[in-house]
């Protein structure tokens, strides 16, 4: 049996590199080891992680509908059921970084296609990913590169590429934006049949040579007849880019940072950690796997348990996985997608290209009530498979004093670490019923009921909001 610290560390890894894992999975992974699990996560299969034939048999509307909810629901289904947790998690990371919104794109299938690109390319390397992004039709439309013409540039894509997607404010000039924009002229969207009235057709990237500016450009101190790929090559060689990406990775996978707009004036919380990630970036040629390998195996990552407020998608998906009742095609998946939105994260529709503000800004009065109610409702339902597994784990521990009962519930639901105040509150509730016993049918039924209440209370703690 793995020791408690190993289980806690593995749970931490799976919360961050995926959407959590059951106790049984944690124990299996502990048996294989931490570094081995990191490698498994970093090296998923080439497939999408889902049996797509089964997916589209049971949910044909996912590939047939034009409605936002169908696209959002498909993604949530994949997050819950994927065989490759990091593949789905990195797609969420890139979606939050390269924020593209259906509010303007108004084409959910194209949004889903962009997420599929993040899933497929998300663990390759940053230069490739930026080229894929620059050629992604939803992004082209979102940032107006289809309106960026030879002799009449539109700077939107060029500006956001530098400001929000790679280098960050303060590391380039207005002229660099203009020159970059010239290099991306002619990178546009091919024509396609309109989606109405016989359903979806997909955009494709199209390069139009007659609309491309082949002239000389000066960009970040370099001179040449650059095109978009050349611009990206220059960008990804900058240490500022490495630092900017490192900070995003730290904020998403390690611990909450200040919001992105403050980064030009606020240093990182852990400079040494950012330096380590920057070194991994520069040494590897911006290889995402290499950077994440350094991150997940670092001490700063291992010591950052519960220092990251779960995003709504993380909270909803990880709780559904813990409850274990969404591991198959079933009705109700749209509610998970809606729940993310109600908690403040409407997938594929961030509030702006600046994306969602994260960390403590996920939490406000309304969102917190929704988060607590959602998690408490699922975890208090002792008929659900995941909750039943927690009950079985409790029963294995035999008769429990109130304190042991609270510690066991915290352990089996996470493990979740709580401070003394929270523990005392849980203990006060547990003491009202005395010891937990499973010896008679009656006592077992009562214990199960009390455990359901305790799990709901844990779901309502401050600590449960953190990953």
């Amino acid at each position, binding site marked *: 049996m793995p020791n408690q610290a190993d289980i806690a560390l593995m749970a931490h890894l799976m919360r961050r590199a995926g959407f959590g894992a059951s106790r049984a999975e944690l124990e299996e992974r502990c048996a294989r080891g931490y570094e081995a699990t990191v490698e498994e996560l970093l090296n998923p299969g080439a497939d999408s992680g889902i049996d797509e*034939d089964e997916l589209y048999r049971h949910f*044909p509307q996912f590939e*047939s509908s034009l409605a936002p909810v169908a696209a959002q629901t498909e993604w949530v289904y994949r997050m819950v059921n994927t065989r490759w947790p990091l593949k789905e998690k990195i797609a969420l990371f890139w979606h939050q970084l390269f924020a593209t919104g259906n509010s303007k794109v108004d084409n959910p299938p194209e949004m889903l296609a962009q997420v599929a690109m993040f899933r497929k390319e998300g663990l390759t390397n940053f230069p490739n990913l930026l080229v894929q992004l620059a050629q992604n039709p939803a992004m082209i439309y979102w940032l107006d590169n289809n309106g960026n013409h030879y002799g009449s540039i539109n700077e939107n894509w060029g500006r956001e590429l530098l400001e929000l997607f790679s280098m960050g404010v303060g590391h380039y000039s207005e002229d660099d934006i203009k020159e970059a924009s010239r290099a991306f002229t002619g990178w546009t969207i091919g024509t*396609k*049949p309109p989606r*109405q009235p*016989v*359903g*979806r057709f997909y955009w494709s990237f199209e390069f139009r040579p007659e609309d491309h500016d082949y002239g000389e450009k000066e960009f970040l101190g370099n001179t040449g007849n650059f095109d978009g790929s050349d611009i990206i090559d220059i960008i990804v060689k900058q240490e500022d880019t490495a630092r900017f990406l490192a900070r995003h990775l730290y904020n998403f996978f390690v611990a909450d940072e200040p919001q992105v707009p403050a980064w030009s004036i606020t240093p990182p919380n852990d400079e040494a950690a950012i330096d380590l990630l920057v070194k991994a970036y520069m040494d590897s040629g911006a290889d995402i796997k290499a950077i994440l390998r350094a991150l997940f195996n670092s001490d700063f990552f291992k010591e950052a348990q519960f220092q990251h407020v779960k995003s709504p998608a993380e909270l909803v998906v990880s709780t559904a996985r813990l409850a274990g009742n969404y591991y198959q095609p079933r009705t109700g998946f749209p509610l998970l997608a809606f729940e993310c939105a109600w908690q403040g994260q409407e997938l594929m529709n961030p509030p702006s290209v600046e994306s969602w503000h994260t960390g403590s800004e996920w939490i406000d009065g309304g969102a917190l009530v929704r988060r607590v109610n959602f998690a408490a409702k699922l975890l208090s339902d002792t008929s659900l498979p995941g909750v039943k597994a927690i009950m079985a784990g409790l029963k294995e521990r035999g008769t429990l004093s109130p304190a042991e009962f609270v510690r066991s519930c915290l352990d089996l639901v996470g493990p979740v670490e709580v401070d003394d105040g929270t523990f005392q509150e849980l203990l006060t509730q547990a003491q009202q019923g005395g010891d937990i016993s499973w010896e008679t049918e009656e006592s077992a039924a009562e214990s199960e009921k009390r455990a359901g209440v305790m799990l709901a209370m844990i779901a309502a703690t401050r600590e449960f909001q953190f990953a």
Partner: protein
Amino acid sequence: MLTTVAAGRVFDYSHCIGMYSTSGIGFLVPMDFALGSNETLYVLNRGVDEITLRISKCTLKHEFIADIGRFGMGDGQFVWPMGIALDSEENIYVTDENTSKVTVMDKDGQFLAKWGDAGSAEGQMRGPSGIAVDGANDLFIVDSQNNRVQKFSKDGRRLATWGSEGSGPGQFNKPWGLCLDAEGNVYVADWKNDRVQKFSGDGRFLAEFGVTSDGVGGLSRPTDVAVDSDGDVYVADWGNHQVQIYEPDGKFIATLVGDAQTPSPWVQDYIDANPDVAKARRRTNMEVEWRFNRPIAVNLDADDRLYVAEAVRHRIQVYSKERDYAEAAINL
């Protein structure tokens, strides 16, 4: 190409019916359909989640008649409807893969009955999908999650059961659609085994055809099957986005890929009413619109016209089997 000539047969594209629509004229994620009397068409639409699910009743001449049924667990409601069939009185039978029940309605959509218990004992079903009615008004139903076929009387009394999980003769891997030929033989689209199996009416294995492939004669996740009066077999090759046609002995004849070059009247009305849509269609290659996208159900009428429903295109393409076709000179 609009006309496919192969092995002495001629399959000629005729027209299409349908458009994307959340109610009224048009369909939304058609799963199956049935041809009724007087050129009536019943299209079973999954819709989007809990809205827009319905049976669209219309005619082959594009006249809308009614929307029947909706999402729910109540009488006359469905959760995951999969298959639809009509008896000799044109009563409607619908299978529901989620509730494992069969709902019966009259041709106007009035609820008549609902039967079926979820389970794996004989007579119970788990995830019923394809359904067909024989001349005696008995029902053959693909009991998909139980990997078998069951025969019921029209009031739900079990008459026969055959099949088990596997890939051998008479075994299935999540089968989907089925049909009967004129002799009462049963053809089953063995979905995850990428083949069609043929049985006698009492469940004796007779033949199988199709192999896992996207090449000549191959199948990928076939969802439905139909047999014409000559015994030729048409398979909705869902995974390959085509229809495969086989001789009665299983020899491959031809592939149809979809030919909807002329919009349905409903689609044309929409285009005419939306100038921007008309403009956009004029400045792009429309071939992708002609082609099948998730052909999911196939049926034939009494004149051997083939009807192919597409889940992603929300329409039905129609082909005729020409009997008196004369080839044009090849050196034109």
